[in-house]
């Protein structure tokens, strides 16, 4: 499905990152990252494995602390807010994990209810059921409501993982390798779902991937992480219109081989 034109407000950044640095022991992963994610935008972060793409979104969601730099998410500096403020902020951020991270011991229904009953205590049983049905319908998996995660396919798990984040109506979505390990048809379905989420739930998203088809189909802008910094940022064609030996193999592997 062709990506519909997104309604992006370039005057309203929801995430602003300046001079972000992160190291593990002696290994510098992020070396002064600068980035803006605008309201309504899908930004794809590309890069080789181990270049710190997942570290970046873990810092944005407060799962990791930066060593240096400023990370403003929805107007709040993630490294300076209290635990309570961080918890409130996280409700406004959806995180779709690489391996879905569904709770093994709970059914799909319980998985979806879990964040809702803990963060929206005033909701009635009927309202909770309605929310669960709405997000399941949005990901096209209403029939799996009483199934356990172990009974689902990889693609279904990914969709349920996305549904679980959508149930809290997040303003920002962070996708960690949404198409990793899936067959091409399911990848297309997940790409369409990411675009549908952007349109239907008016989210701004960061999509971490090294799947260029996913990047091309979902991204309004591409940011290429090279040597711990965003060295190429722009439209898909702009980023790959280069002879840079670090960038070319990405394109050639995905579209020529």
């Amino acid at each position, binding site marked *: 499905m062709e990506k519909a034109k997104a309604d992006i407000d370039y005057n309203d950044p929801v995430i602003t990152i300046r001079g972000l640095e992160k190291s593990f022991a002696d290994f510098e992963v992020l070396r002064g990252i600068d980035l803006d994610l605008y309201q309504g935008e899908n930004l794809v972060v590309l890069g080789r494995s181990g270049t710190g793409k997942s570290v970046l979104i873990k810092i944005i969601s407060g799962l990791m602390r930066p060593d240096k730099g400023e990370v403003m998410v929805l107007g709040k500096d993630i490294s300076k807010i209290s635990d309570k403020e961080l918890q409130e902020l996280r409700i406004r951020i959806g995180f779709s*994990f690489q391996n879905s991270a569904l709770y093994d011991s709970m059914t799909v229904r319980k998985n979806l209810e879990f964040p809702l009953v803990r963060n929206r205590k005033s909701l009635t049983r009927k309202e909770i059921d309605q929310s669960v049905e709405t997000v399941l319908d949005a990901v096209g998996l209403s029939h799996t409501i009483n199934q356990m995660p172990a009974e689902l396919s990889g693609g279904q798990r990914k969709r349920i993982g996305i549904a679980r984040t959508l149930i809290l109506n997040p303003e920002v979505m962070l996708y960690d390798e949404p198409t990793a390990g899936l067959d091409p048809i399911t990848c297309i379905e997940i790409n369409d779902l990411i675009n549908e989420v952007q349109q239907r739930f008016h989210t701004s998203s960061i999509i971490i991937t090294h799947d260029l088809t996913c990047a091309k189909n979902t991204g309004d802008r591409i940011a290429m992480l090279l040597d711990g910094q965003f060295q190429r940022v722009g439209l898909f064609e702009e980023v790959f219109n280069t002879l840079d030996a670090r960038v070319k193999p990405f394109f050639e592997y995905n579209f020529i081989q």
Partner: protein
Amino acid sequence: MDSVNSSPVHAAKKGPSIKARLSNAFVSLYEINKFILRFFKEAFLPPFEIKEVMRQCYETGVRSFTLITFTGFITGLIFTKQSRPSLANFGAQSWLPSLVSIAIMRALAPLITALIAAGKVGSSIGAELGSMRVTEQIDAMEVSGTKPFKYLVCTRVLATTIAIPILSTYTAFVALLGGYLNVATNEGTSYTTYWEQVFEPLTFVDFVSSLAKAIVFGFTIGIVGCYQGYFSNKGTEGVGKAANGAVVTAMFMIFVEEILIVQIAGWFR
């Protein structure tokens, strides 16, 4: 054939020095104390996960019930059988119920219950939380605005602290029943007389120390299992290590605590 250990490659690979090991031990001690403090900080503040605590209590009880029934009964039966010849030398078989009750109430019931629970429940907690850690389920809880420590750790530690004393009381009962079976078969002691003789030597301190032990053991099993699982890493290998570490560390701690509590209870007798 040369042993693998004598190969030059292996010889070059030295383990961490004594200083490094000692330093690691102190760091672990500091970390586990921080973990315990965090438990007390979070467990008794709202929101309370009462439903989950009850579910975990049920899980703890059910996981160990059959094994505890069997082990407790056999322990009582065998202990009585083995003690008879020694007492018979002095013609004191009538003291058997008192001997059995003191041994079971003061030491065996809480200890057996704790060791079985450490194996069954502690390992299960370590493996479950370890697997949740490596599959990012704990991170998923955290980013969805839920406090995973409260939901996963506090509930499990509270559950083992509540359930182990109940199981320990039950172990004492079935062990004394085992003792009764042996006494009734050999001496023909009536059921009423047996229980009268069982309770006669027991003091308030015996009941309190037995209960205190079970509470401390339950807390230890929960906190050690959760600590090992919650901070597990290195993929599936880490899950196995968490389960194994939960059992070994809890058992070691249980024996150390047993010595301390026996010593403290002795001051009140």
